């Protein structure tokens, strides 16, 4: 009797232990560093496809583009934003950017007419986003749709509402790497991939030939590490994942050390990186440290010994904070809302301005015509301008879409063939145990 009890107990113990751990581990996987918008929207994309298809039949998409044809009224475009739900913090910042942008555009006007944006709520979910987009595209008949925040929401909208139409979709905040696969889906915020490319450039520029990479064992870490390996042309001495929440990374670091690489790259989270820095310090390893933006933070500074990271370089997605147009934007933003703008506001601002410019450059207010102009007005061929007013003047003087190269408040934009903008990143170097901005890099 005693025998059986003990065995059953052991079995149950093991099972429960695993269940307990599994249950708890999932609670800490959230913040992807800068990629906050990716966190919550992955679930319900699949089932939405059928809704889009069936609604397309009985709606009347092209006949009633309200406002557009009334020659005098404002141009009407749509926006799907996360006004409620888990991403509503982003949504609020977006709305502030949009407000400022509308002011800017309507002061000047688009060929004598104004711009108006109908904003619908995605509730931060794919389902809500698709319904909102259907309303905007099929009922209101907008040819230009700004949306959405979460990468999963943006993709769901694109696949079920926008894909087979002429409507232009420009996501304001989605940073997921998957969006690159859909060239028809434009976005204003650069992908995490730009960080990897920038890091490869910086490490090579600093004169290192061999690099050891370690990344956190999840989608975020894996995709950034893969992109780095793709972009890196030197020797890859070490490339391994590590799990989160380990109590010791000394094995990993000793492996990195014996790989004899002179540059060490970390794509992980703050807590894991703090542990690693402590072990690097107490083991006396000498590698030159590099990191993605998710390894930087005040916590890391306060939990690591003074001087343990000096010289480390980190790239952080950033607005061009030293450019005049961003400063002007920031001061207007502060006047209106009593706080500094985040890059999420800047992205939304640029979405609206880009939309306005593409409308002014197009021959007619239809999706097909806007598809032609929206990429051109930000591309490098034309004259560089950093405000809507200046760009609008060029177009009013008879310039075509490719005569304008709008430089946004969030960066140079310059959509590539995949609909992704150029990444604008700040290089931060640790000096005297503080992060100090030491330059900017585009990738």
């Amino acid at each position, binding site marked *: 009797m005693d025998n059986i009890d003990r065995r059953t107990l052991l079995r149950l113990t093991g099972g*429960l232990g695993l269940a307990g751990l599994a249950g708890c581990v999932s609670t800490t996987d959230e913040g992807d560093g800068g990629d906050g918008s990716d966190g919550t929207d992955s679930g319900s994309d699949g089932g939405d496809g059928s809704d889009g298809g069936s609604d397309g039949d009985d709606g009347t998409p092209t006949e009633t583009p309200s406002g557009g044809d009334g020659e005098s009224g404002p141009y009407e475009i749509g926006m799907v934003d996360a006004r409620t739900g888990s991403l509503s913090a982003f949504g609020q910042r977006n709305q502030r950017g949009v407000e400022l942008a509308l002011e800017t555009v309507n002061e000047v006007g688009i060929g004598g007419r104004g711009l108006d944006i109908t904003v619908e709520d995605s509730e931060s979910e794919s389902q809500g986003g698709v319904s909102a987009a259907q309303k905007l595209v099929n009922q209101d008949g907008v040819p230009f749709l700004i949306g959405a925040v979460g990468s999963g929401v943006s993709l769901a909208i694109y696949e079920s509402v926008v894909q087979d139409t002429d409507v232009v979709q420009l996501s304001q905040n989605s940073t997921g790497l998957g969006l690159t696969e859909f060239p028809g889906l434009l976005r204003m915020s650069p992908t995490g991939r730009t960080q990897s490319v920038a890091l490869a450039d910086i490490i090579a520029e600093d004169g290192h030939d061999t690099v050891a990479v370690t990344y956190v064992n999840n989608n975020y870490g894996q995709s950034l590490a893969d992109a780095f390996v793709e972009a890196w042309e030197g020797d890859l001495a070490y490339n391994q994942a590590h799990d989160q929440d380990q109590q010791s990374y000394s094995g990993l670091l000793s492996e990195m050390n014996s790989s004899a690489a002179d540059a060490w790259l970390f794509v992980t989270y703050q807590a894991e990186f703090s542990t690693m820095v402590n072990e690097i*310090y107490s*083991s006396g390893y000498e590698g030159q440290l590099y990191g993605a933006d998710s390894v930087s933070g005040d916590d890391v500074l306060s939990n690591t010994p003074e001087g343990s990271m000096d010289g480390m370089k980190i790239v952080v997605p950033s607005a061009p904070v030293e450019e005049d147009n961003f400063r002007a934007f920031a001061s207007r933003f502060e006047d209106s809302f009593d706080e500094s703008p985040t890059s999420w506001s800047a992205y939304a601002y640029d979405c609206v301005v880009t939309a306005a410019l593409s409308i002014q450059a197009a021959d007619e207010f239809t999706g097909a015509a806007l598809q032609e102009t929206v990429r051109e007005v930000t591309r490098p061929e034309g004259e560089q301008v950093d405000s809507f007013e200046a760009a609008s003047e060029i177009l009013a003087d008879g310039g075509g879409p490719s005569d304008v190269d709008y430089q946004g408040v969030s960066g140079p934009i310059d959509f590539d063939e995949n609909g992704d903008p150029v990444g604008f990143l700040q290089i931060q170097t640790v000096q005297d145990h503080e992060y100090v901005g030491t330059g900017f890099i585009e990738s």
Partner: protein
Amino acid sequence: MVLLDHIASGLIFSSIIVLGSIGLSLVYSIADFANFAHGDTMTVGAYSAFVAFGFVGGLGGAVLGLPFGFFAALLVGIVAAAVVAVVTEKVVYEGLDVDSIGMLITSIGIAFVYRALVQMYFGADPVRYDIQALRPIEWLLPYEIRVTQHDVAIVVSAAVLVTGLHVLLQYSDLGRKMRAMADNPDLARVSGIRTDRIKLWTWIIGAGLAGAGGVFLGLYNLLNPRMGFDLLLLIFAAVILGGIGSVYGAMLGGFLIGMIHELVPLFTQLGTVLPLVPDSFAIPISNQYASAVAFVIMVVVLLLRPRGIAGEAV
């Protein structure tokens, strides 16, 4: 030699696991259930020492890079963990009239309560003792051994505690009674041992050692509310590998599991370490699977010795 470095870090990691596994095994042998709150008892010890260190940190001189205040804080951590465990035993476990599965589930709940309380007061972000971090000991560097004086302090303190427990169990009256009770509680009781009191002492010793393990884990790494729970699975592996219920088995199991865990990085460079095989010889299992390897070895041992290494034969 790189092998020595790995053995050194294995020794340090083992010391912490041994401290955790002894308590788990002790409580199992006497209270008769697998205590899932044991990992979080370590966390409680670590954070109590953190608070205490804030008050007495500057105390006196230093030994092995640690101020005397740290050892005072260590004592506070041990006492706090023991007090918390005893209070839990009195308030919760003692009054529960359920079988060992019920106790086990209850202890998982207790683990969450401990962790939530720690998190409420200290937040989820890591903190560390305000002790000057050390560089590796210089005269060991030529041998490629990278350990700090703190690491030495961890191993030495663990050795002292384990030896103390051994002496207590073998040569003291309390130890004899504990062993009697672990063997056969009913017989111990009819022969006049106050089993309630012994049970309480078991909790105090087990939780106290766990508290010490937590303090050292915090010194070795950082403190965060999940530190103990994250280590608990390895501690269970150690206890079961050694033979659950056996204190000496837990010591041995803890030593082996910690060692294996830290030696896994060698798999990819076996050729350079072993004699007689070509330098390119390697087992392609990278360090991130260290825990998995430790568990595989545990399973293999259990297949050969179902009661664990030190467990009695079936």
